[in-house]
């Protein structure tokens, strides 16, 4: 019987290991030409880890073929779960992209409301109030108590 979580994790590990060994390390790690001893080279450690990852991946795949049951508690799909997860991915990307334009406080307020709507909050009024108050309180703390520069955006600046 094929144990899915073991087999898929093993396969992913093996693919990642091969990617690291044949693409990422040769093109992504710069080793000085005057390094005489391989163990001191900047590529040595990533290569060792990649090989170990590949070996563990193979062991997981073998283990997945022989295991009798998967110990992972399955996250059963609920109604609309894939849509919600996809929307959250878009929300996260938009959150990061909007900070320089709208500022951290306004972006956080909008994202708060969007996430509350996404998980269908049963307290919309409290969510709306929290969406305004929480980012403002955090702004006050980080900007005025901790003295950090919080991005203000291009439209509306806070004191």
């Amino acid at each position: 019987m094929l144990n899915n979580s073991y087999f898929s994790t093993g396969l992913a590990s093996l693919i990642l290991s091969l990617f690291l060994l044949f693409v990422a390390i040769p093109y992504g790690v710069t080793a000085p030409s005057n390094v005489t001893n391989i163990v001191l080279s900047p590529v040595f450690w990533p290569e060792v880890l990649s090989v170990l990852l590949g070996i563990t991946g193979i062991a997981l795949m073998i283990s997945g073929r022989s295991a009798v049951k998967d110990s992972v508690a399955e996250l059963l799909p609920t109604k609309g779960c894939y849509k919600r997860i996809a929307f959250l991915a878009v929300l996260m990307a938009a959150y990061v992209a909007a900070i320089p334009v709208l500022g951290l406080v306004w972006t956080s307020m909008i994202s708060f409301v969007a996430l509350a709507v996404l998980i269908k909050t049963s307290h919309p009024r409290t969510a709306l109030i929290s969406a305004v108050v929480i980012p403002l309180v955090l702004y006050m703390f980080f900007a005025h108590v901790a003295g950090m520069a919080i991005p203000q955006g291009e439209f509306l600046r806070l004191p």
Partner: protein
Amino acid sequence: MTLLENLAAGFELVANFESVFALAGGVLIGVIAGAIPGLSATMAVALTLPFTFAMQPITGILLLLGVYKGGIFGGSIPAILIKTPGTPASSATILDGHPMVKNGQAGKALGMALWASCTADLISNLALILCAGWLAAFALKFGPPEFFTLILFSLTIIAGVSGDSLLKGIVSALFGLILATIGLDLVYGTNRFTLNDPNLMGGLNFIAVLIGLFAIPEILAMVWNPKSNEGETQSLGKEWVTFAEYKRCFKSIVRGSFIGVFLGSIPGIGAAPSAFLSYSEARRKSPNKENFGKGEIEGVAASESGNNGVAGATLIPLLALGIPGDVITAVIIGAFMVHNLQPGPMMFLNSPDIIYGLFMGLIISSVFLFLIGSVAIRAFRYVADIPRGILFPAVMVLCVYGCYAVNNNIFDVGVMFAMGWLGYVMLCKGIPAAPFLIAFILGPLLEDNFRQSMLMSGGSGEILVRGPITWFFWTLTIITIVAIIRSGLGKKKAEAVEHGNQE
């Protein structure tokens, strides 16, 4: 300086309004976060970490330690009242705690949980004070090869015991080690996986990785199933724990505390196994063993003392060796790093006031835990009723602010979200996150000590077995691997038998 002088210096550092307030505030935050199903003590510590940047080192670290201790106790409140452990460490408390609630003894169960937690916490703190200095003095003899073997041993045990599968634990640790190689090379300063992006030259930000790994997956899980984490709160009842009951359970509490201290001082084991071991030992030795699982107060006392006994002891390897004892202390190490402090044997020489200040603070935290815990038990209903539709958006905003505040860098926020997705995939595949985070922290240290050893020996591997200390850690590593493989094979055999019986 003598021990008393050090303790006096530490007390001077802690005996001020800021430190005491931070400690009390930390315990309160921890109890509240631990009491909310869906939040964990780890998440609470991770989210509090950015608020410590503007504080004095001792104040910030005390705040986090308060959150840690409060969080471990707080987890027992929903475990008892709504059969939903606030933290994994509280799972054993359900076994007798919830049946007591069904018998109308919720107040008694929670009271015993608090008393046992505070007693175990105190014993654990005393063990830390007695053992950490001694271990640190011994660790001064360590050179790079000894540290390399010690870290390797810690990683092995963490990878092996953090999840259901040793192999998945190893994969998780290897992911963490690989991710830790991003940035400039430690010896030559050349680029490693930086894509020539200046944001990556210093490596991935530790706080972005940890918040992403521990807080964001909870939000994703909530979005996947918004109806999860719902439970029905029970009333406290009229009965309260008596001193006679505490006295009757005292043996189990002390035993559980020592089990917690022993398991907590070994990196990676953590509070949950300690709670279960303490519970099973109490059941084995108790004259009321047939009552266990049906609402036996001694069962609550044993499991709570087991999990709280770990809290001080996990700081022994952290402070003495610079190795985090569990995932929460791995987060706390971040607070040390942010304040340019390197926990380990040298800290006992360079900053003894901070070390002993922490010891004093930990002792005081037991008192705060008792006082705040007593109030929290009665106020749980309000905490548990925080709507998830408000809690999780608030957590997301808190994550973004906290992550941004580390370096004032939006790139870190992107890293945090990316790590959140990785953490969620790991959660779905049953890959434990703890080895990942601990390997990510220890990775540079492991590589650094390895390469220093190689530089010392001119590239000869013999230096890694140069003396009794290195041999000791190699032996422990091998014994651990063999033990974990044997237990894994045993489990597989049992599963096969069970599977055969079902067919």
